[in-house]
């Protein structure tokens, strides 16, 4: 019974994104809420009908038929209103009468979803709102689930989604693929949003692990969708997919032992604090293999993006044994990554790789040059480096890290380190 409910949930989640994309394309993106309502009503009727009469032979076909009827009905009502209230719109009638062509064919669904992906991943919406809207429209999560992933409430999420949709309307975003010369830069934004989505799942503060995992899987699904089209199946897309596969392969292991430690993107804590405690028996070998397939495809061409470098670093972390070769390679990759993108987490991770390759003294000297005096991860790293040689210094660093930490989980992780010193 629970299994049946779960598989029904999956059907609804998958079909939500498909139906909303197809109907929005037909109605126009400015009417995205109407599309959501039509799909919601369809699902409510499905829930009642299927609950009472049992599942139809082909549930998705059932949903497409009912959604189409509702879409046409809604459209006719609006047209009636428009014809009476706004006579100038009557001119559109000929075009509008062709509603019966609304189709949920495989091709329409695929095209609409890709167009929706590009529409939502416009550079014009703020990140947080964009991630929220992507979780809703591209991944099909409910408002409550999104609120849980962001550790906030329904109202906040609803406001964010509302503002994001307003911005889409104000900017006149339509569901068309960018032209070829725009596509490369627009694809960068799409990939960035997908990676943010993945991180939202991977590093989310929520304790709901199945939700975290679902968010990661949905982000990966969007990446896979991009590989279905020649124009978007770029080395960068494949590099990002490889990166997500390698990270996701450790999903179970990461939760197997120590409490989850709210690590920032880049995985400094993932490497330093949790990685060594992970049980590699829990690594998902199939995902690791898949990661290498994508990595191979990413290496075709001369493109070298941060995704390429991060994917290769992540691939080394899928090797459990600490060999000199491994850490030398990781150090080299972090050096390259810092040339492309000077992020604090990459700098900190580089110091840790240096520690593994050249020892504590060299790493300490490099760390001292970073001077990230307001970063709790910086002091956590310093504390780790002092741990073997100077317990008092290590404790002082961990205490500064504790004072700077912003979340409860971070403080817990640091407290654990302080306790271990004694």
């Amino acid at each position, binding site marked *: 019974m629970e299994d049946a409910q779960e598989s*029904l949930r999956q059907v609804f989640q998958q079909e939500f994104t498909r139906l909303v994309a197809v109907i929005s394309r037909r109605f126009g993106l400015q009417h995205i809420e109407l599309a959501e309502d039509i799909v919601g009503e369809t699902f*409510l009727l499905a*829930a009642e009908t*299927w609950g*009472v*009469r049992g599942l139809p032979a082909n549930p998705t076909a059932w949903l497409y038929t009912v959604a189409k009827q509702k879409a046409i009905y809604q459209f006719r009502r609006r047209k009636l209103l428009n014809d009476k209230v706004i006579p100038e719109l009557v001119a559109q009638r000929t075009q509008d009468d062709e509603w019966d062509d609304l189709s949920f064919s495989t091709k329409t669904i695929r095209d609409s979803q890709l167009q929706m992906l590009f529409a939502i991943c416009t550079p014009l919406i703020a990140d947080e709102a964009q991630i929220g809207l992507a979780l809703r429209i591209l991944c099909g999560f409910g408002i409550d689930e999104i609120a849980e992933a962001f550790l906030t409430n329904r109202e906040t999420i609803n406001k964010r989604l509302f503002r994001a949709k307003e911005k889409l309307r104000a900017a006149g975003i339509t569901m068309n693929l960018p032209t070829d010369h725009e596509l490369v830069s627009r694809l960068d934004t799409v990939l960035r949003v997908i990676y943010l989505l993945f991180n939202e799942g991977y590093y989310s503060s929520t304790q709901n692990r199945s939700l975290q995992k679902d968010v990661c899987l949905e982000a990966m699904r969007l990446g896979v969708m991009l590989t279905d089209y020649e124009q978007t199946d770029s080395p960068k897309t494949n590099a990002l997919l490889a990166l997500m596969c390698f990270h996701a392969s450790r999903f179970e292991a990461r939760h197997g032992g120590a409490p989850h430690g709210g690590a920032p993107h880049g995985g400094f804590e993932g490497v330093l604090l949790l990685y060594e405690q992970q049980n590699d028996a829990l690594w998902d070998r199939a995902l690791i293999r898949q990661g290498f397939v994508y990595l191979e495809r990413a290496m075709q061409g001369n493109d070298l993006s941060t995704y390429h470098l991060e994917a290769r670093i992540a691939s080394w972390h899928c090797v459990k044994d600490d060999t000199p070769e491994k850490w030398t390679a990781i150090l080299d990759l972090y050096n390259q990554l810092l040339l492309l993108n000077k992020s604090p987490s990459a700098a900190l991770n580089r110091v840790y790789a240096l520690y593994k390759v050249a020892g504590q003294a060299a790493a300490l000297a490099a760390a001292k040059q970073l001077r990230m005096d307001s970063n709790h991860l910086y002091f956590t790293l310093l504390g780790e480096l002092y741990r073997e040689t100077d317990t008092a210094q290590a404790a002082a660093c961990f205490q500064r890290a504790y004072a700077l930490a912003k979340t409860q989980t971070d403080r817990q992780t640091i407290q654990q380190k302080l306790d271990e010193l004694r």
Partner: protein
Amino acid sequence: MSEFMLLFRQPSFETGQMSPAEFAAIASRWQAWVGGIEAEGKLVSRGTRLATEGKVVRANGLITDGPFVEIKERLGSFVLVRANSLDEATALAHGCPAIAAGGSVEVRPLLV
């Protein structure tokens, strides 16, 4: 034993904001409710589904889209049950998910 029709009425609420999990839970509740009646051997028919859209014809010949334009609670569908009395049939209506959704169930004896 007589037969009774249980008609569900539900308000149209903001379905556009509900989650896949909620819809799946609603389906399960309907299934559990109808399954319970069936297990007691009291289910006669699972009814026929009504689409939510339609027309309303009035005395002056006015035809409107409906019925939800003017009525808060839209008529959903129905099931037929078998019971010894109206009270017994009414008892079966308890637990109908339409009630939990803020709607109602009308219990009407079928006349033979």
